[in-house]
């Protein structure tokens, strides 16, 4: 007998006699369902992880390229600017950095007013203890009161309650002065409970709902505000401009910015003009718009007269943004800025509305030739060489974020996806 036939016979003899139990399909189906659930869960986790990582990485890259030219990473701000020095909590503050009188400061994420009288230093928290986090305290230098405009809380220069719905006086942060160095204890002492309202409130302080910053006629003529100081370190939408690139006086710049649209959503504008007013290391940044007509644009700088103006209706403002014309109802819109390491950091998203005060009766007289509405193209206009519409000075650059987080995120995403797919294929046995 040939081996092939013997082999066939041997296999049949052996295998046909083998007893095979019936297949318990129901038990196997339960295992199928279990594996199917496990596979679906694993696939979902892998896809979510991969998609999330990829989206994160792509978002990093898109953000980086959308913001165009990369600049250096801005260090944490440390120098005083615009009357708002910034200090880290616990860091000793040179006494010389604190001006005489009342000044607004930031201690880490804490906003404070510091009142200096020679070597005497008093520090007030800006929390008005009415609505937590409201923190919208102003110092009115002419009336010598602290005031919260939303609900009309008033406190005197020593932080004592005067009027409004506040529960108690301002919280005091203990401060010591030694060897010309000020150290501030961040554990504050709450102010005394409110007593009766003061009989002598500032002239013009509105009664009723006590809100007084929403229209012309406010009693607080030239407030020093505790806002806007919402960033302890530069934010991702901030821009920087080298300090040396900012000329003395007033200059026009363009900042591609995220601004709040009409529907309260942030939207990117192709290039927003801003005015930077520099006086040594004192810098103020204004949005180049007319506050009463924000969509009309065209705020002019008249260098000879030293005023900001708008031709159609003749609004005029001085270099601090205050109204000096007859037709404006509100001062210029400020954009928050602060000094980093030899560079100005501009935060285009945090803006401070101008004071809603019309021209003071005792203000300087109008510029010669000013006639209300004025056309700068006419030879008779008072504004002979207006500055608007063109580009002058350096353009602020966006803060540069490093690319490695994007690369890492994309790498993790691809790796997670690949590992997940390999694992899944191994689990289900791909036929080779």
């Amino acid at each position, binding site marked *: 007998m040939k081996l092939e036939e*013997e082999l066939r016979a041997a*296999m049949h003899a052996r295998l046909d006699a*083998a007893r095979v139990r019936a297949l318990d399909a129901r038990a*196997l189906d339960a295992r199928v369902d279990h594996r199917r659930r496990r596979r679906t869960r694993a696939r979902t986790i892998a896809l979510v992880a991969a998609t999330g990582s990829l989206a994160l990485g792509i978002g990093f890259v898109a953000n980086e390229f959308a913001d165009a030219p990369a600049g250096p990473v801005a260090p944490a701000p440390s120098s005083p600017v615009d009357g708002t020095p910034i200090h880290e909590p616990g860091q000793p503050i040179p006494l010389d950095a604190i001006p005489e009188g009342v000044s607004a400061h930031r201690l880490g994420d804490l906003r404070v007013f510091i009142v200096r009288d020679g070597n005497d230093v008093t520090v007030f928290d800006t929390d008005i203890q009415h609505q937590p986090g409201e923190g919208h305290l102003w110092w009115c230098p002419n009336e010598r009161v602290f005031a919260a405009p939303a609900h009309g809380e008033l406190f005197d220069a020593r932080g004592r309650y005067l009027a409004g719905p506040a529960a108690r006086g301002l919280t005091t942060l203990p401060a010591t002065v030694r060897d010309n160095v000020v150290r501030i204890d961040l554990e504050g002492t709450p102010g005394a409970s409110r007593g009766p309202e003061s009989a002598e409130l500032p002239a013009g302080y509105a009664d009723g709902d006590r809100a007084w910053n929403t229209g012309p006629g406010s009693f607080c003529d030239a407030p020093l505000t505790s806002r806007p100081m919402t960033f302890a370190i530069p934010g991702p939408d901030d821009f920087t401009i080298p300090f040396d690139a900012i000329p003395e006086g007033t200059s026009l710049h363009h900042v591609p910015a995220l601004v709040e649209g009409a529907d309260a959503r942030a939207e990117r504008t192709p290039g927003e003009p801003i005015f930077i007013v520099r006086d040594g290391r004192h810098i103020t940044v204004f949005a180049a718009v007319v506050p009463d007509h924000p969509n009309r644009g065209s705020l002019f700088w008249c260098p000879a007269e030293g005023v900001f103006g708008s031709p159609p209706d003749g609004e005029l403002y001085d270099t601090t943004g205050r109204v000096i014309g007859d037709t404006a109802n509100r001062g210029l819109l400020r954009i928050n800025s602060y000094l980093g390491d030899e560079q100005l950091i501009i935060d285009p998203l945090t803006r401070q509305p101008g004071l809603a005060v019309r021209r003071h009766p005792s203000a300087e007289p109008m510029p010669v030739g000013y006639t209300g509405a004025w056309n700068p193209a006419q030879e008779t206009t008072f504004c002979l060489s207006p500055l608007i519409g063109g580009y002058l000075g350096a353009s602020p650059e966006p803060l540069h974020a490093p690319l490695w987080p994007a690369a890492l995120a994309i790498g993790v995403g691809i790796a997670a996806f690949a590992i997940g797919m390999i694992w899944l294929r191994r689990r289900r046995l791909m036929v080779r």
Partner: protein
Amino acid sequence: MAEDGTERIDLTGWFVGEYPRLVRFAIVVCGDAHLAEDLVQEAYIRARLAGARTEDRIGAYVRRIIVNLSRSRFRRILAERRALDRTDPVTEAAPVGERDEAIWSALLQLAPRQRAAVALRFYEDLSDADIASVLGIGEGSVRQHLFRGMTRLRALLGEGGER
């Protein structure tokens, strides 16, 4: 109908009907009856997870899963099995009546693919093309596996040189 237009089959029903044949094929492939049942049941689970197949392809598909499983996940178990076999080698001259047992022992010493090809040819009576389809290899490779398998069997059974 499946998405590709082919007819779906009742996989569970097909498996229940084919289960004895599949287990017997798996016994040849792995050499162990209990392990063969595990192999076929694992193949059933994987075929269910992979989705429906048409009836003319499901047989080859499932047998290929069985062969692949025996070569991958069950490799360690099979290695242990072969080690046990080596401790009880087949005698050179098989006594009368024990010829089938000698052939079977020699068969289990073949390489997995050779054993699978031999089983598909002499137990399942498949053509070279069908064997190639099951094993996922070319027909030339099938003929080579069969030739080497038979040569090795002859050597093990003391019939060297003949074919």
